[in-house]
């Protein structure tokens, strides 16, 4: 596990100036029942005086309870309750999935987790028990399976962003450089995750890169790419293969969007409560849709929630196992 290794939960809490006994006193009976863990940035070895304390509690009885907020002095404390079975439910999703060996590390060939479960997995991989007798949330052998799934999730985001940047470059509009820089950023996230660094919160990327030993110049170059050519050169210098986006993705109508009628007129109503008299209703391989309707309408439909873009599990499996 990369990252700044935290020796004890007391040291992690010390970053925000709170003692474990002080936390227990403020929480009262809340922490008396079940197993309690410090999770999030502090547990992962990051954080500063302005960080929150995130606590996950596991109990054999009762179900999920919505998170609630309390304060120790000025420090916010988020507490969230889980049933013990939540751990087994998560492990069942990530254990023994087929993986492909890649330059980043083993990547799961499917992406089974919702974003909520992905965040839980990250937090539980780095959780620190308030009581050492509680042991880790996840068994140590779950780490490899968990990171293969986390890596897959970031690879999906990278492939998606490369697809957008490739399409934007075809339009020759001003948006492409920003999207290539975002793709460069995701290469760095993939690198960190592949090296065993995981923490929720995008803002910790510089700290993760530092902990993983990625040189500042390398990172700045990836964050500053402005074209497909620069992106390919930067990833190539890291020893990575070419990353394709358009050919590894598909598009489909957003299932949350629906057609509505007003008089004789038809509109598309998106999940963002926007109404469009004209819209994109394409489905299929991104490359084929691009050839059919053009890159600019495709990007417009994606931007406005008319259509969504997915990474093709089959196409990515073929690319990873090639």
């Amino acid at each position, binding site marked *: 596990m990369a990252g700044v290794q935290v020796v004890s939960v007391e040291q992690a809490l010390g970053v925000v100036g709170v003692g474990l006994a002080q936390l227990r006193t403020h929480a009262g009976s809340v922490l008396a029942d079940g197993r309690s863990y410090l999770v999030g940035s502090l547990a992962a070895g990051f954080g500063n005086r302005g960080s929150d304390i995130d606590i996950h509690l596991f109990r054999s009885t009762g179900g999920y309870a919505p998170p609630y907020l309390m304060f120790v002095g000025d420090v*916010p404390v988020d507490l969230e309750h889980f049933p013990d079975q939540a751990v087994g439910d998560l492990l069942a999703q990530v254990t023994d999935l087929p993986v492909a060996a890649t330059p980043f590390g083993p990547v799961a060939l499917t992406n089974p987790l919702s974003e909520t479960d992905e965040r839980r997995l990250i937090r539980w991989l780095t959780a620190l028990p308030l009581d050492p007798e509680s042991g880790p949330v996840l068994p140590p052998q779950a780490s490899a399976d968990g990171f293969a799934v986390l890596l897959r999730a970031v690879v999906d985001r990278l492939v998606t962003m490369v697809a957008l940047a490739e399409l934007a470059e075809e339009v020759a*509009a001003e948006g492409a450089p920003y999207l290539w820089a975002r793709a460069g950023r995701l290469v760095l996230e993939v690198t960190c995750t592949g090296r065993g660094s995981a923490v929720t919160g995008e803002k*910790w990327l*510089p700290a993760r890169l530092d902990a993983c030993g990625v040189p500042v110049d390398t990172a700045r170059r990836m964050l500053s790419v402005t074209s497909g050519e620069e992106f390919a050169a930067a990833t190539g210098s890291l020893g990575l293969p070419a990353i394709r986006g358009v050919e590894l993705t598909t598009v489909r109508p957003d299932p949350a969007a629906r057609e509505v009628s007003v008089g004789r007129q038809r509109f598309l109503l998106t999940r963002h409560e926007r109404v469009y008299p004209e819209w994109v209703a394409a489905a299929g391989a991104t490359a084929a849709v691009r050839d059919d309707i053009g890159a600019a309408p495709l990007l417009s439909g994606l931007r406005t929630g008319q259509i969504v873009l997915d990474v093709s599990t089959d196409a990515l499996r073929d690319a990873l196992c090639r």
Partner: protein
Amino acid sequence: MPVDGKSFDIGWLLTHGAGASWTFAVSVQSHLEDADAAYAAEDWPLCVESCLLTLLCVRYCDLVVDGYSQRASEVERHLDVAYAGTDVTRDIRGLPPSVGATREDAVAARKVVATHVGRLRESLPVDVPVLRSAGGFFPTVRLGTDIERLRGTHGLPPLDWYQWDV
């Protein structure tokens, strides 16, 4: 547009205005505090990162002011920044790389953030306390309670406060 100076429509306050105020409390304020904490810790890369996230939330909040609902996906969010052509999206694209950022980078980023957060505050219907603070939590809850009460008297159902998510 206001019809008489600074007034605004009650229907807007109880729907999009309430949503924008809530989004400001849970997203913009949080990242703004992160930027301040990082600056105090002289962690310039983290400060620039937090400024970037603040501006992304400001942009989302701008959209909510205009009636946008539900979470924007990563695809939608970044295509919007790439193509919207607003002042805030241009400034997001103009931020320096966070890695290796200097004190000067952090100072400049915070200045940009202050401008956009100030503008956004002006567009909100109510003054929003700092939600995640010991002194601001209950006043913020009070705002929500009052908005729900007004919604009731105007024949509106309870608001789904969690429809807005960055």
